[in-house]
């Protein structure tokens, strides 16, 4: 079984290195096929591992020692348990599909080989992240996905910077740097968590740490929990570190599907799920996580309501769904969070890939106000995106219905009505903005003709490649019970109370109702075409939402610009004017004194003699005084 583990882990790395060999040569289809093939192998190995874990329990392997210093020993240790197996299958499934899809999508791109190298490297990092059996290994993956995301967001690095009024993300390279730096802020928190664990437990191994939890001080556990959660916030783009995710949409769309929807951004959720014994021990932090998740859910959904950028809408919806996951995890329903994570990965990747199709068809035009009526030319994509949006909105019997509904049930069960209500409203908003986007893109008048676009459907193999995701988005919900049984071998099981069971049907109905009404409202407003409401668009709330609550502007003005100014000031004023001038001043002092006393060297011997006399007097005075004192 260890071999399967290594195959699953290293196949993407091999693919990445293979593609890297061709990195500087023109497009070569073989890189696409080899990486996809290797990922398929990795997927196969993951599925086999899942089956093995299902019957035999955890598989673990210790490859070699990585860092050993003092009492610290960190191994490249891997363990595949139920959580990891699920994550592995989700990651490899989505990434295999995305790889195959990208062969079609990146067809005309100069950096074709490079793209596959990066993409496979990302999968490798993600696999390390989920498979590691210790926090240091997790951190390797954590940073690794960060770098790959940096590379991939900035994939079209040659685009120049433009003003925020033209493109809110300025440029791909800017967005990439923003994502990396934001993630690094959170990583610092994670590092602190790791240090705390090491100095109090003596090991970074998950199991050792979890076993030691009962013996640790509550305050300490709270700090560890907060520090780790800060790490999770960065990677999963939770408020206030959320701005990078929308800007990350500058990357190629398959990247958005894989990294910024299905896998990397869920790493934070994975961490919270993984550290469930810790968060169970500190309910205060856990409930904070739940509230924060809930807040992010509605906060992101509100921004999605008015956005005109196809990918950004989906990005906000990702953010919002991540909020759902954190809410579930924070409330203690870890398996529900994991289930929603998996379901979300499938339909959100599908949604993004559909958006990719549209983008491809529209020649990289992303403004949904300039689309419309595309269903005639892009029937397959319409179907996929419709399905994915239904799943996202949580309509029976699609995957999103089961997962989202269970989260709402959990909120009821925990008597946290504020969370329930907020998430309930968010469900309605989700349905509305998803279908606003679908209808604006595919129905109504054909506004694309105004900008002279000639949309066309993607090649068939691309659509076929997307089929697995579509199927999973439809049927995944029915696997909820087996999934529950499987993952609760590791995770704490979560049982609804009897009362909740009784009234569950009522909540299911009202949740479905609000989702349906959201869809209906979107249909009424947008299905027949776009009617722009100038008054609404100039209202304060609308502008607030389109400008993302002015948070990016705030960050820019309060952090980025002052940082630059303080840096300049420190350099020009402090370092050059104070520190260096002091040093030079000391040198000048000696130099000037030397220069002044140089005039003593008049060349006139009798002056010298006079000085000699002075010197003699001084020395003798000194001698006399010294002998008197001594």
């Amino acid at each position: 079984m260890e071999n399967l583990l290594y195959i699953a882990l290293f196949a993407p790395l091999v693919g990445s290195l293979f593609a890297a060999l061709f990195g500087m040569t023109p497009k070569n289809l073989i890189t696409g096929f080899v990486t996809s093939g290797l990922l398929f192998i990795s997927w196969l190995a993951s599925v086999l591992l899942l089956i093995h874990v299902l019957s035999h329990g955890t598989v673990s392997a210790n490859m070699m020692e990585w860092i050993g210093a003092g009492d610290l020993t960190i191994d490249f240790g891997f363990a595949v348990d139920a959580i990891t197996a699920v994550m592995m299958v989700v990651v490899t499934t989505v990434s295999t599909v995305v790889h195959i899809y990208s062969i079609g999508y990146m067809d005309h791109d100069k950096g074709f080989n490079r793209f596959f190298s990066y993409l496979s490297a990302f999968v490798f990092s993600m696999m390390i992240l989920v498979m590691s059996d210790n926090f240091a290994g997790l951190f390797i993956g954590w940073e690794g996905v960060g770098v790959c995301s940096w590379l991939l967001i900035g994939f079209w690095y040659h685009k120049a910077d433009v003003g925020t009024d033209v493109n809110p993300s300025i440029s791909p390279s800017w967005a990439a740097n923003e994502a990396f730096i934001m993630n690094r802020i959170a990583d610092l928190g994670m590092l602190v968590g790791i240090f705390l664990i090491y100095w109090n437990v003596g090991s970074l191994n998950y199991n050792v740490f979890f076993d030691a939890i009962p013996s640790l001080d509550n305050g300490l556990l709270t700090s560890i929990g907060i520090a780790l959660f800060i790490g999770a916030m960065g990677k999963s783009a939770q408020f206030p570190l959320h701005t990078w995710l929308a800007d990350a949409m500058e990357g190629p769309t398959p990247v958005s599907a894989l990294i910024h929807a299905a896998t990397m951004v869920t790493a934070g959720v994975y961490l919270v799920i993984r550290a469930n014994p810790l968060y169970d021990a500190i309910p205060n932090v856990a409930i904070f996580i739940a509230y924060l998740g809930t807040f992010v859910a509605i906060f992101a959904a509100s921004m999605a309501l008015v956005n005109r950028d196809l990918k950004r809408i989906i990005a906000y919806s990702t953010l919002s769904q991540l909020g759902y996951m954190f809410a579930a995890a924070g409330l203690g329903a870890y398996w529900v969070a994991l289930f929603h994570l998996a379901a979300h990965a499938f339909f959100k990747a599908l949604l993004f890939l559909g958006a990719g199709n549209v983008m491809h068809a529209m020649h990289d035009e992303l403004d949904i106000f300039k689309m419309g009526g595309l269903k005639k030319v892009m029937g397959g994509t319409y179907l996929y995106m419709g399905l994915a949006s239904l799943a996202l909105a949580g309509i029976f019997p699609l995957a999103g219905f089961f997962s989202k509904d269970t989260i709402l049930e959990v909120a009821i069960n925990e008597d946290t009505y504020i969370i329930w209500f907020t998430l309930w409203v968010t469900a309605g908003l989700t349905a509305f903005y998803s279908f606003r986007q679908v209808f604006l893109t595919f129905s109504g008048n054909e506004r694309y003709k105004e900008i002279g676009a000639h949309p066309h459907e993607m090649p068939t193999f691309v659509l076929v490649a997307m089929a697995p995701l579509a199927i999973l988005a439809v049927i995944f919900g029915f696997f909820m019970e087996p999934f529950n049984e499987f993952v609760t071998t590791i995770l704490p099981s979560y049982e609804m109370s009897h009362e909740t069971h009784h009234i569950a049907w009522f909540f299911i109905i009202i949740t479905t109702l609000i989702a349906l009404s959201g869809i209906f409202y979107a249909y009424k407003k947008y299905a027949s075409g776009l009617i722009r409401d100038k008054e609404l668009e100039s209202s304060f709330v609308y502008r607030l939402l389109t400008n993302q609550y002015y948070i990016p502007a705030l960050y820019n003005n309060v952090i980025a610009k002052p940082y630059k100014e303080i840096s300049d000031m420190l350099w020009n004023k402090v370092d050059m004017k104070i520190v260096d001038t002091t040093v030079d001043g000391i040198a000048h002092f000696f130099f000037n004194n030397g220069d002044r006393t140089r005039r003593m060297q008049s060349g006139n011997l009798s002056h010298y003699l006079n000085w000699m006399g002075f010197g003699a007097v001084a020395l003798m005075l000194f001698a006399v005084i010294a002998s008197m004192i001594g």
Partner: protein
Amino acid sequence: MEQIAFYIFSVLTIGLFLVTVLSSNVLYAMTSLAAGMVIISGLFFLVGADFLGVVQLVVYVGAIMALYSFGMMFFDATKDIKEKNTNSYLVFALGGMIAVMFVVIFSAPVIGENIQATYFVTGATNPQAVGLILFTKYLIPFEVAAIMLLVAMIAGIILAGKKMDDSLTTRDENHEEDTTFGLKDEK
């Protein structure tokens, strides 16, 4: 008797040396210097250093002063020396302070009485004693001094005797390099 002699000698030496230092005529200065030397030898006799006194007379008055007088033939000794004296108060003040300090430093160990005689010679007259010590303990310094005198003599001859005929002040500018010894004026 000794006291009277000492005070006479002291007053005379001080007076003569003052003349040496303050006079603007070289001849006066030199003459008074020579006279001062003679009287100093008297002081030496007073403290019982007979041999030293004789050497003082022979070397200083006999040799050195003769050397000076010969040397002065090369210079124009008859006219007064014109000197710009700036700030002579400072000079006197410095000189006085140094004198005071020398006295303090020299007399401090004497007053403290922590000096011990190491080469104590008794039962011999002064010249004999001097000879005994000079050719035993101080033999090597004595020989070195002899060599030094030899070297000095040769040096003196070469320096003074070099191109005795031509006056360097009237030499051609062209040949200056050979003989300037690096003493070149800034132009």
